[in-house]
């Protein structure tokens, strides 16, 4: 009996451990509970990873994102509702407040169910634009699934995404072997504003794809909403507080049917012939996208920060409040990365480095931090440098912001004082001072000799003057 209990306890601990770094409370906003069965595999995966899921209808009064002013859920998943709008407890403002309070949101859109206007204004607020025609969808005549969409070409097959830049880590490449495809049935296109560094397209449409409205563009498309790689099929936004927001263009991607579906590529743009039937990678990819959104991957944690004087002969005092200009100083910071269920040492992707700034208003130094030591759960980065010859209040600042990683912004303030009067080189070391020091010596010698003469000199008769001199 007892061993069963302990086994249960162990199993419970295991599930509790295998959970996101940002909490396990997940709210799924779903219009009809019957729809749950459509997503059973996806939601089952989430539960298996330790999320405790509550299901609510968008109009329900229990859907509140906040209770007594505190965030009630850690994560929210909004599946496309059938109704035109979301309820009064899911207004764009409340959703934004939820993000500002650190909650993560995953929104799935669907071309077959018009996107509620509340969601559209939320997306607009974040500079994500979707077509004004609510039924517009993305099609591609060169990358469609010939089994399910031979006529309409509205199931777009997209390969696993490449890293958006060579120096950015790709969390969504699967095992990296290639040859996989993700099926996007009837996706809703998104275009992104160019101004914000917080927005990142996770998956772009292929070159030949375009968004069209089945109502207006019947014969031919002349003024498409957007085309080619300008279309984002999955968009991510990571707020300044590292809360994550993801828009998945096709909610059907998450459905059981497409987790198992077999697909067959059409003839591609380069004339590559159609291949064989194969299974979609939707399940693994959905896990990666959801895991990223709900902070199971790409989360950074700062451990210990330490800085000290690095002069020969000085004793090491950790984190002093004050330094002098031109002191040699060492700085180290400990960084960990969360990966699904554990903290691992953080290593930046090839081509990227962690940098330390030493700044007063603007950086005086911006130096690369090098790996000094790797522990089981963290990497310790360190650097040594000479403080600038400017006194004032300075910050040791590590500002590591990268797409898909949570923001690291660590500031440690220290005072940098100028030289004290007795820390300068002595005057005899300065060659330019030698004539002046010699001058003082000469004056002192002359003065002492003069005092002796004044006291003890006997007047002598001046030559040529009669009767001697000075008989005072």
């Amino acid at each position, binding site marked *: 009996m007892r061993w069963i209990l302990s086994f249960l306890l162990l199993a419970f601990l295991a599930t509790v451990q295998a959970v996101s770094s940002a909490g396990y409370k997940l709210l799924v906003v779903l219009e009809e509970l019957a729809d749950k069965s459509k997503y059973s595999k996806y939601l089952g995966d989430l539960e298996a990873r330790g999320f405790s899921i509550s299901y609510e209808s968008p109009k329900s009064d229990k859907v509140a994102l906040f209770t007594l002013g505190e965030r009630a859920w850690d994560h929210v998943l909004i599946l496309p509702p059938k109704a035109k709008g979301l309820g009064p407890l899911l207004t764009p403002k409340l959703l934004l407040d939820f993000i500002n309070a650190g909650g993560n949101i995953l929104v799935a859109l669907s071309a077959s169910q018009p996107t509620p206007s509340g969601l559209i204004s939320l997306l607009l607020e974040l500079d994500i634009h979707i077509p004004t025609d609510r039924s517009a969808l993305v099609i591609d*005549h*060169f990358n469609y699934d010939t089994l399910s969409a*031979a*006529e*309409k*070409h509205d199931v777009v097959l997209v390969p696993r995404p490449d890293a958006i*830049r060579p120096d*950015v880590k790709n969390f969504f490449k699967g095992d990296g072997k290639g040859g996989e495809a993700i099926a996007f049935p009837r996706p809703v296109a998104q275009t992104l504003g*160019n*101004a914000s*560094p917080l927005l990142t397209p996770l998956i772009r449409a292929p*070159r*030949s794809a*375009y968004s069209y409205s089945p109502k207006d*563009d019947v*014969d*031919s*498309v*002349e003024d498409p909403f957007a*085309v*080619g*790689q*300008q279309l984002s099929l999955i968009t991510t936004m990571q707020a300044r507080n590292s809360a994550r927001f993801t828009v998945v263009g096709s909610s059907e991607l998450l459905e059981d049917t497409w987790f198992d579906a077999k697909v067959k590529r059409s003839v591609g*743009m380069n*004339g590559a012939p159609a291949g064989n039937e194969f299974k979609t990678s939707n399940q693994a990819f959905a896990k990666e996208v959801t895991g990223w959104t709900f902070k199971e991957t790409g989360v950074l944690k700062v451990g210990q920060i330490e800085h000290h004087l690095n002069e020969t002969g000085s004793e090491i005092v950790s984190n002093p409040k004050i330094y002098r200009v031109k002191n040699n100083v060492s700085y180290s910071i400990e960084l960990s990365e969360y990966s699904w269920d554990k903290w691992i040492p953080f290593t930046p992707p090839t081509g*990227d*480095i962690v*940098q330390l700034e030493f700044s007063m208003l603007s*950086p*005086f130094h*911006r*130096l*690369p931090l090098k790996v000094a030591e790797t522990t089981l759960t963290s990497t310790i980065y360190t650097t040594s440098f*000479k403080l*600038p*010859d400017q006194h004032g209040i300075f910050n040791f600042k590590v500002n590591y912001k*990268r*797409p898909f990683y949570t923001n690291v912004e660590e500031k440690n303030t220290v005072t940098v004082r100028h030289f004290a009067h007795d820390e300068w080189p002595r005057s005899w070391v300065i*060659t*330019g001072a*030698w*004539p002046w020091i*010699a*001058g003082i010596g*000469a004056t*002192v010698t002359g*003065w*002492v*000799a003069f*005092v*002796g*003469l*004044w*006291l*003890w*000199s*006997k*007047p002598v008769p001046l030559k040529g003057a009669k009767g001697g001199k000075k*008989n*005072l």
Partner: protein
Amino acid sequence: MRFSSLLPSALVLGAGIAEAASGWNFDEAIISVSAKGAAGAAGAFKDKLSDHVPLSKPVTLGQTETLKIILTATENGEPKRPHQAFLLLRDQDTGLEETFPLQTKESGKGKVDFATLKSQKDLPIQLLTSSQPLRATLLLASFGSTQAFANHVFNLDIQTDPNVAKPKYEKPLRYGQLGEINHIFKADPKSGPVIISLLFTVAVVAAVPILFGSWVLLGANLSHLPKATAAAPVSHSLFFSSILGMEGIFFLYYYNWSLFEMLPVAGVIGLVTFLSGSKALSEVQSRRLAGER
């Protein structure tokens, strides 16, 4: 050798033609570049596009010129209007691609014409500043199982006016690694040449023997020393050594004493100087009054 390399390409070509006949394609595609307001003027560029080979020379597009393509799209050899008719322009430096949907016009006799009017104003800045000609790809596709058409048809060389400043492209902010900054320290203060310092030091030090020498020449002596010490031995020795002591204190203050170490000692020595000095100087005065000075 030759044959073996030629044979597959001939096969591929054959396959391409066979495919072209069964899918989407185009007829009588004419590309022309003309200056604004002078359409069809002599000297304007005009050529025919081929569906499997790109034009051998890049098409040049000047500052004020417009590019026009007129073609008839065909499905399985029959003129038909495709759903997608795009011209893709790709920057070969960056891989950035911009798409231009062609304007379709339905004319009679089952013929479908396409025309696109492109001037440099329609192109994004990034493409204007490309160092290589843009690669133009034509897409003709529609629903159903008919094979879509996509081929590289020509290269477009953008000629910018050298008199007009090139538009500047400002990169938007993206998070990433920033440039390294190393503080530039102010130069340390430096003394002048050592030789000059030494020269003047020697000159200053040499002034002391010159001073002593000239005093001796003028008859300075210490002949009254025995007389003075005989008359007031304590006060004379104390007075002179207290003056020496005071100089010693000044030296120690310069070397490593603080003001608070120096002041009490200087006070004591000063008192000694004052007391012994009044005695010693009275003795000097007595010698003067005795007419010995």
